[in-house]
């Protein structure tokens, strides 16, 4: 099986990601337990507190996880790219089940048992530790079990904010349209969830067995030890030497390659590089750069203009670059010289359709569109330079409202005939691999999307050698190079790091 070979080839990485995954889920469950159990105990004794608390936790639970990461990213101390945000989000999700079962566990205690404790002369504290908590432990344990399983599942999404974990493979696989890589992450994540569920079930059974005297000390001690181990590991992971440059990228193949090219170029100067590749989308990268969680990533001028700075689209290349450079400079960021290619949006149709109906431009497609269905990535549907403006500029009406899905999945949807029109990247290697045709933008709707590295000004000041190294890339990555590299990653399944290395060594030759 391909997946097994992949695991064997990437042993060290699989284990590291698995470790990160366990750490993310474990720490967030522990933190949630440390918060929700005392809170639940307090709420159980104050009924007026419990309804609003459970309501709040319920509301938090309904926030979709990607939206949650979006909220948390810009937060000062707690947010940002990396494990902190992920642990915070996962902790918020884990609160509700533990809170609820703690409250039920305590309020469900037989009244005569509690009365007996009071009548025998227990102080409220003694009653809590000797009667209420021991009797509530089976219920609390069931809540922790639910929370832990949910955390293992949700931790896959943590890769979107650069926290690592097995989700890394899932995102990478989606970006590379490679189901082997997706499975390499998804299978262990699912197995881990089942394992955690089974293990905690076993612990829960043992804690509920009446033949063992239940004390609070055992579980408390275990939780304490786990907490100390977890927190110190986290502290070590979170600690980052200041002379490390953090390179980010968005989550599709081209960005992974560009991230690697930038990272390896910087490494060539002797600096240490921390890779935070595969971050969610444009806005996540932008916020991470703004907050200093990453130092550099490659953006596209048109995207920066419209999606980051909310400016109207412009069509003059020089004008767009100048505006974007000024806007970045205002927030302490430097736009470096363009790498050399323009990755504009490409409206794509199947090669067979293009040949049969003579489709060459978007104007040609507008004629056929009323019989067509379309699918677009989330960004293209939302962005001001996306579908709404395009439809207006070319007078496009479709048979049905366009479906929104992950950008990388739209290529497959088009190739397999589920939709007839998608918006892809002009440099995508899949255009060639899946026999697709890019339609010409005859009316000049799309602004230029020159690939440009953006870096934090202070990082460049601290490391002048890094600036020189990045500037040496100016104009070297042509559209043909980029298409070839994307093809190697997306169709030939070569690792982005290897492709980047080959490019820097001058081994990628294009006509």
């Amino acid at each position, binding site marked *: 099986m391909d997946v097994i070979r992949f695991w064997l080839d990437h042993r060290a990485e699989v284990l590291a990601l698995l470790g990160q995954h366990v750490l993310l889920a474990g720490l967030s469950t522990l933190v949630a337990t440390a918060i929700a159990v005392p809170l639940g105990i307090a709420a159980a004794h104050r009924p007026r507190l419990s309804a609003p608390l459970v309501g709040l936790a319920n509301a938090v639970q309904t926030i979709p996880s990607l939206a949650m990461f979006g909220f948390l990213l810009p937060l000062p101390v707690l947010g940002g790219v990396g494990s902190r945000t992920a642990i915070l989000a996962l902790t918020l999700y884990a609160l509700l089940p533990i809170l609820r079962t703690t409250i039920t566990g305590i309020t469900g205690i*037989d009244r*005569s*048992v509690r*009365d*007996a*404790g*009071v*009548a*025998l*002369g*227990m*102080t409220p504290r*003694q009653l809590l530790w*000797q*009667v209420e908590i*021991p*009797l509530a432990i089976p219920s609390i344990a069931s809540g922790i079990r639910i929370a832990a399983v949910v955390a293992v599942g949700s931790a896959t999404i943590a890769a979107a904010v650069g926290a690592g974990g097995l989700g890394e493979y899932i995102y990478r696989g989606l970006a590379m349209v490679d189901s082997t890589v997706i499975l390499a992450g998804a299978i262990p994540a699912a197995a881990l969830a089942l394992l955690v569920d089974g293990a905690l079930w076993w612990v829960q059974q043992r804690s509920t067995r*009446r*033949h063992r*005297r*239940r004390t609070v000390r055992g579980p408390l001690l275990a939780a304490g030890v786990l907490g100390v181990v977890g927190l110190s590991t986290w502290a070590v992971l979170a600690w980052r030497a200041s002379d490390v440059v953090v390179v980010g990228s968005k989550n599709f193949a081209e960005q992974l390659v560009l991230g690697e090219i930038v990272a390896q170029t910087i490494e060539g100067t002797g600096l240490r590089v921390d890779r935070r590749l595969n971050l969610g989308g444009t806005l996540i990268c932008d916020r991470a750069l703004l907050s200093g969680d990453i130092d550099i990533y490659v953006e596209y001028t048109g995207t920066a203009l419209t999606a980051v700075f909310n400016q109207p689209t412009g069509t003059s290349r020089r004008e767009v670059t100048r505006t974007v450079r000024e806007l970045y400079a205002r927030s302490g960021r430097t736009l470096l010289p363009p790498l050399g290619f323009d990755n504009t949006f490409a409206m794509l149709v199947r090669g067979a359709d293009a040949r049969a109906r003579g489709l060459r431009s978007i104007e040609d497609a507008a004629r056929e569109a009323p019989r067509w269905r379309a699918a677009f990535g989330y960004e293209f549907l939302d962005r001001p330079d996306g579908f709404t403006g395009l439809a207006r500029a070319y007078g496009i009406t479709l048979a049905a409202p366009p479906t929104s899905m992950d950008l990388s999945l739209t290529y497959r949807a088009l190739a397999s005939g589920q939709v007839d029109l998608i918006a892809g990247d002009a440099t995508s290697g899949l255009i060639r691999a899946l026999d697709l045709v890019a339609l010409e933008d005859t009316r000049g709707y799309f602004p230029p999307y020159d690939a440009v590295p953006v870096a934090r000004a202070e990082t460049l000041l601290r490391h002048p050698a890094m600036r020189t190294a990045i500037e040496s890339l100016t104009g070297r990555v042509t559209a043909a190079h980029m298409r070839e590299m994307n093809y190697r990653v997306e169709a030939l399944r070569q690792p982005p790091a290897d492709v980047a290395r080959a490019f820097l060594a001058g081994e990628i030759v294009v006509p």
Partner: protein
Amino acid sequence: MTAAAVDFRGVSFRHADGTPVLDGLTLAIQPGEVVALLGRSGAGKSTILRLVNRMLLPTRGSVLVDAQDTRSWDPILLRRRIGYVLQEGGLFPHLSVADNVAVVPRLEGWLPEDVETRVQEMLTLVGLPPDRYAARWPDELSGGQRQRVGVARALAADPPVLLMDEPFGALDPITRAELQQETARLQQRLRKTILLVTHDVEEALLLSDRICVIDDGRLQACVAATAFDEADDPVIAALRDARLRGKAR
């Protein structure tokens, strides 16, 4: 005359919502005396017990334990010297029989070996051989055995006062009779001050020195157990008739 062990002086009690429960109760219980509180369910009998160990405070009037108003007692100290036997035992399901009995001595900070000895004594006293029962769990015991453990737990720290809230109400008639007899024998040796809530006239006659009838939140009549058969009081007479009819059936 020595001071009463427990002294109710014009005690009224209303719930927080204003529902009246007790109205002007005056009753003095002497040291070593057993007083049975008889009455229908909801007559306010359990409330009287809870007023003694300050789980409730009177709305009007005062309750004196050892000549001191419960309002000025530290509730924890007060409860540690008052044993409480609940209906169906009220045992802690997460503790073994021995640990249940050991609760109050441990709260009182006894040395472990003293606690151990005491548990053995108490289990023996209530007729549960420690070697067979100490390590058992409450849900492995019969109702009667649970009740015995409840009594042992209440007596473990040797409190001078004992409150018993329908202690044998949930048992089958044979077990109940057996436990009543044993409790009577136990009291002959221990001489505790006991307030016993029951709605069983036989039990009241067997165990108590004095029988007090509570109805509608008021003390209707009080009579020495020995005088029960001759008392002229109409309330007592009605009880007596009901008892005779019950026997005839």
